[in-house]
Every structure is written in structure tokens, then in C-alpha cells.
């Protein structure tokens, strides 16, 4: 049986090498995705275009405006000339055509009010179409105004929080995204290729031929799965290397642990690939189904947005998504140096899922073949 197993692996590799679409998936996809995502993905909100309407024109108001300009949060546009009596809602023409995302309105009595020790108000308008930018922009505004206010009035609240940030010192979103990309690549490649490879045997009719030989069903499966496990891990390594060498992302934890757990994750993805092969009859269907499933898994894994943001019902659904656990694992290991103990719940979940999906798919496959 060992000879059959090795023969199977060799055959699979030859077939992958000769198939342009599989090669495309293995090589083109990771490189393109990584480069694109690494550069395009940018959830940091910066350079918000800000219209400034300063009707006070005092030294204090100009200082406030300078404080807003400092750093790269805001990008003041040319100060628009508008009469003070203009109603606020007319200012939205600038929002409509996208020339400004926010506006700061400092009214006439700003500095005089402050000098008297009153509490004064500045108006801040935001284009809410991009909710995230608006919220973040308002947050920046609040911070800058508070700080300036403290400086000018000499008054500060009695209790403050001193914040300290762990991990990701440069607060680069790339560091957070690339591990996620590695996880998605690992999943997509293994699910797609495995399901396609198994279905292909059925398509060409060679499955029947194989069944007539002494090769046992599980040897056959193991041969295919081993091949794609190897390819999947190769993918992951390729992506990680690009990430670390090209994008300079950190790798704080243990690579060995990551690979071991990637192997565990592969149990679930290979199992899914096997499962899809039992419900499709052509390679194209298999590829498609795998893609569809992958999108769903990726979007609900915490890749783009934290799971805690999602409605409670969806959060509960994500517990069934193996990718969610691996996302935590890879980010934990790479960015925080998480160890075995820290990741026990995720590991446990992956073991359970892996065992269930894998055995279920195996049984289905046996039934389908026999």
C-alpha cells in the first residue's frame, strides 16, 4: 500500500504541474492577492479633507485651526469664503460633489467667549456617507479640540486614562491584514484544488479504474489529501515569506507552532474540499462552489472587521466557521507571540471541527464510490 500511496502522490503532482488553471491558482493568486491587498488595504483614516470656516479670525481661532492641521489627520482645503449667515445645510454642496469630507465652523464670539471663561462651541460637520471615516474624523476632532481646550483654559479633567498599546507599534494595517491574507489563501487553495482534483477523477472516468485496483479508498483519499496539504502549506509559506520580506510584517511567535496549527486547520479545509467533491459532478462546479463558500467564510472570519462588531446572531453563526479560529491563531502567533496555552480554545475548536468534517466527508465519499 505504501507504494500505491507514493505513486498516487507522484501522479497528483504531475497532474497539478500540467494543469494551467491549477498552477494559476497556486502561484498567481497569492502573489496578486498579497500585493493588491497589501497595498490597497488601508483602513487607516487619514487626510480627511476639511473645510474651515473661521468667522472669528482671532489668534486663538487660528491656533485651533493650526492644531487641526498638525499631523496627517486632516487636509484643510482652501478656506472657503462664505457669509456667516449661510445656513448650515447649504454647506452640503461641498459634500455632495466630494470636495470636502468634513467642515469646521468657528463662529464670531469664539475667542471673546473663551477669554471670559465661558464654554464655547465649534460646529463640526461630517459627510456621513462613509460612516467609518465620519466617525473616526469626529473622534480626531474631539481629541484635538479637547487637547487645545485644555491648553488654552489651563483646565483639565481630574481623572485621565493613560493608554498603552501592545503589539503592532507602528499601527500599520498591513501587519494586521497580511496574516489574514495568508489564512484566506491557505483555505481557498486547499478547498478549491482538493475538490477539483477529486471530481476530475470522476469526470475522466479514472475513478472507476482506480476502484478496480487493490488501492483502498482511504489510500486514494490520503494520497490526494497529502498532495494538497503539501501544496497548501507551500502556499502559506510563500505568502508569509512575501509578507515578512516584502512588507516587513512582524513575526513575534513560534513559526513551528504556526505550521503545526496550519496543519490542523488543513484538516477542516481538506475535509470541506472532499465534501464538495461529493456534491458536484464537474470541476467547474467544484471550483465555483469552493469560491462561494470561501467568500462567506472569509467575510465572517473577522478578517476585515472584528467579529465583535457583528450582530449577536451572526456572531453565534461564526462559531461554526473554522476560519474564524485560524484567523485568531495566525494573528495571535504573528503579532502577539501567542503560545499553545493562549490558543487552547481555538485549537480545541479546530480539532473538533476537523474531526467532524473530515470523518463525515470520508463517509460520504465512501458511500458515493461504493
Amino acid at each position, binding site marked *: 500500500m505504501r507504494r500505491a500511496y507514493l505513486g498516487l502522490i507522484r501522479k497528483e503532482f504531475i497532474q497539478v504541474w500540467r494543469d494551467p488553471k491549477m498552477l494559476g491558482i497556486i502561484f498567481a493568486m497569492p502573489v496578486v492577492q498579497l500585493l493588491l491587498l497589501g497595498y490597497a488595504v488601508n483602513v487607516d483614516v487619514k487626510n480627511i479633507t476639511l473645510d474651515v470656516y473661521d468667522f472669528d479670525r482671532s489668534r486663538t481661532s487660528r491656533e485651533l485651526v493650526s492644531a487641526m492641521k498638525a499631523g496627517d489627520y486632516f487636509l484643510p482645503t482652501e478656506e472657503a469664503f462664505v457669509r456667516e449667515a449661510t445656513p448650515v445645510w447649504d454647506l452640503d454642496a461641498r459634500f455632495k460633489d466630494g470636495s470636502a469630507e468634513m467642515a469646521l465652523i468657528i463662529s464670531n464670539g469664539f475667542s471673546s467667549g473663551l477669554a471670559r471663561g465661558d464654554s464655547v462651541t465649534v460646529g463640526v460637520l461630517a459627510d456621513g456617507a462613509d460612516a467609518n*471615516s465620519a466617525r473616526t474624523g469626529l*473622534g480626531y476632532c474631539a481629541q484635538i479640540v479637547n487637547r487645545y*481646550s485644555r491648553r488654552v483654559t489651563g483646565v483639565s479633567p481630574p481623572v485621565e486614562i493613560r493608554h498603552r498599546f501592545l503589539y*503592532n507599534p507602528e499601527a500599520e494595517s498591513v501587519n*494586521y491584514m497580511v496574516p489574514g491574507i495568508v489564512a484566506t489563501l491557505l483555505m481557498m487553495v486547499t478547498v478549491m484544488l482538493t475538490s477539483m482534483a477529486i471530481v476530475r477523477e470522476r469526470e475522466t472516468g479514472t475513478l472507476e479504474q482506480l476502484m478496480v485496483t487493490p488501492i483502498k479508498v482511504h489510500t486514494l483519499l490520503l494520497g490526494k489529501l497529502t498532495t494538497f496539504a503539501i501544496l497548501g502549506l507551500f502556499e502559506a509559506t510563500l505568502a508569509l515569506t512575501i509578507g515578512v520580506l516584502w512588507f516587513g510584517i512582524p513575526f513575534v511567535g513560534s513559526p513551528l507552532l504556526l505550521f503545526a496549527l496550519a496543519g490542523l486547520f488543513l484538516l477542516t479545509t481538506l475535509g470541506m474540499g472532499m465534501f464538495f467533491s461529493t456534491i458536484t459532478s464537474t470541476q467547474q*462546479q467544484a471550483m465555483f462552489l469552493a469560491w462561494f463558500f470561501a467568500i462567506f467564510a472569509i467575510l465572517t472570519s473577522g478578517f476585515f472587521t472584528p467579529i465583535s462588531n457583528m450582530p449577536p446572531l451572526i456572531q453565534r453563526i461564526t462559531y461554526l466557521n473554522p476560519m474564524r479560529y485560524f484567523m485568531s491563531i495566525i494573528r495571535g502567533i504573528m503579532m502577539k507571540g501567542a503560545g499553545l496555552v*493562549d490558543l487552547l480554545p481555538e485549537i480545541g475548536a479546530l480539532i473538533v471541527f476537523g474531526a467532524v468534517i473530515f470523518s463525515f466527508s470520508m463517509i460520504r465519499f465512501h458511500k458515493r464510490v461504493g
Partner: protein
Amino acid sequence: MHRIRFIVRKEILHILRDVRSLIIVIAMPIMMTFLYGYAINLDIENVTISIVDFDHSRESRDLTGSFYNSPHFSRPKVPVDPLDPESILRSARSSAILYIKPGFGQALGNGEEHTLGMTIDGSDAILAAAVQSYSNVVLRDFLLERVPHGVPVPGIMISPRVFYNPDLKSAHFFVPGLVAILMMMISALLTSITIAKEKETGTMEQLLTAPVRPSEILVGKLLPYILIALLDGILVLVFAKVVFGVPFVGAPLLLLGFGLVYVAAALSIGILISSLVATQQVAMMIALLTTMLPSVMLSGFIFAVKNMPVPLQAVSYLIPARYFVAIIRGIMLKGAGADVLAVHGLGLVVLMASLLLVAGRRFKTRVD
């Protein structure tokens, strides 16, 4: 005209019988609308935060209550390990730890200055920034309520006002853009596959021996997809309004007009791709790589284009979705008119015209 009808009917049968196209046309839109409306949510809520209280005063307990009563924060499921507090961050059971040092309650009572410490998991930079600012907000509100002598209110207050989306719901941002993505998917992806399939199975050759003109074949094949794309777009819009409350402030006809231009551009891409490949599978892969991926990444659908490196920004000008995303958001959320959208509209029209030209030329030569 008569002949076109038969081709349209055949095409519709193909669509109904092919699992793939059914998935793209029905299942995908539903799933993506659902996901982007509900799951992909940049509103930071329910962040798990651990509070370690060394003060054990009534004030510290009240502060703890304030944090957990806020919609932004929620309780962790496990306590902090006193020997290794940061392990809770490493294992992602909590996103931040707030330490209330001894003397907090007393300082508060005496009006003295006091500092609290917070350690935040910085791996998700957005979340971390949000935690920082929300924690400040919770603290400030707490002080405003609790401190007996009246807290000196900072001299300058902000009066914020949000246009178009006062509750700052993510869905308003994503769902309109999703329409653009879905329409691209149907128009470009499906079209490239269907034409490639005819080539692959040899039925294209068969069709051409019949008294049908190539242009009629093309129109007949594309018509169903135009209809489906528009239909899907409308469905998602209705869904957006009814389920997510996304407003539609502007002119529907204007959107329809731009929508048709957009679909034409997408179809041209589909035709172009199918003229370059021999098999459906390769068509699908190329379509995914050149239409879907860039449309999602580089159109402003999720990530702001202006923050990207210049080369990518340049590439984004070649992507029809870039223009359409801006247009549909402008019309739906801001009620922008043709005058305001002229720039985007022009870009889209120019792009569409060039794509149509190239695709048309290629299709003719390949078929003849």
C-alpha cells in the same frame, strides 16, 4: 428581431440549468447583501474589555458599571490572570485591560488628580483607536455625572452634525457599493463564461452556420444578462431600503441611466475576456482576477482610494466600478444631481466607449 428572441430564450434556459449561473444570479446577491449589510460592520461595538479594580470603592464599582453599560464595551468571559495579565490579550479573550489603581475613589472625592492605566491590544489598529477614544468618552461622561463639585467643563465643546447618515450606519456605506459589485459580477463574469462556453463546446461554430448574423448572436446572448443585472440591482436596492433603511434621496432615473452605461462597460469587458480565451474555466479565472478583485479592492467600495499608493490610484481610473460606486453613493445618500456627478459620469462614459470599441472589434474578427 425574431431570431434574437430565440437566442434570448436559449440563453435563459442555459442560465436556469447551470448551477453556477444560478448561484451568481441568486445566491450570491442574497448572501453578499446579507453579509455586507449585517456582518461587515465597521461600527465598533461590544468590544471586550477587562477591568481590574484595585481600589474596591463605590466609585470604582460605579465606573466599572459605566463601562459595561456603554454599548461600546462588554464583559469578558474569563477573568484576568493576576500572574500574567497580558495573556488575556494574547489569547484575544479581551481587547483591553483597564487598571483602577488604589485611591481612585478617594481622589475623586477630594477633587485630586488621578490617572488610570489601560493596556490595549494594538494589533487591530482601528479597534485600538476606537477603544482609546470610547474609553475617554465613557470616563468623561462618568465624571460629568459623578463628581459632586462640578467638573470644570473644557472650554471648547464640539457640536457635531452628520449629514446623510446621522446614525453612522455602516450598511449605508457598503450596500450601495455592493450594487456596483454585483452588477459587475453578473455582467462581466457570466458573460465571459457563456461566450467562452459556446466556443469551447463548438456550438458557436454551429450557430454561425445558421442564417443569424454575429451581431444578432451577440445581442441575443447579452440581453438576458443586462436584464438580470438591472433586476438584481433593483432587488438589492429595495432590500437596502426596506431592511437596512438605506435612504434613496436622489433621482432614480439618473441612477438608471448611469447604471446602463456601467453595465455596458462591464459587458464589454466580459466579451473582451471571452474573445481571448478558449475555455470557460480560464475565462472565469481571468474574469475574477481582472474584474471582481479590482472592483472590490480598488473602487472605493471598502477602502479609500486616495490613501493608496499612487500606482494603484492610477490603476483605479481604469476600473468602471470606481466611477459607479461614487455615483451611486452620491445619488442614493446625498441626492447629488447630474451637475455634481458630471465628472464621474464622464469618466464612466469614456471608459465604456473605449471598452465597447475594443470588444466589438475583437468579437467580429474572432467570429469571422
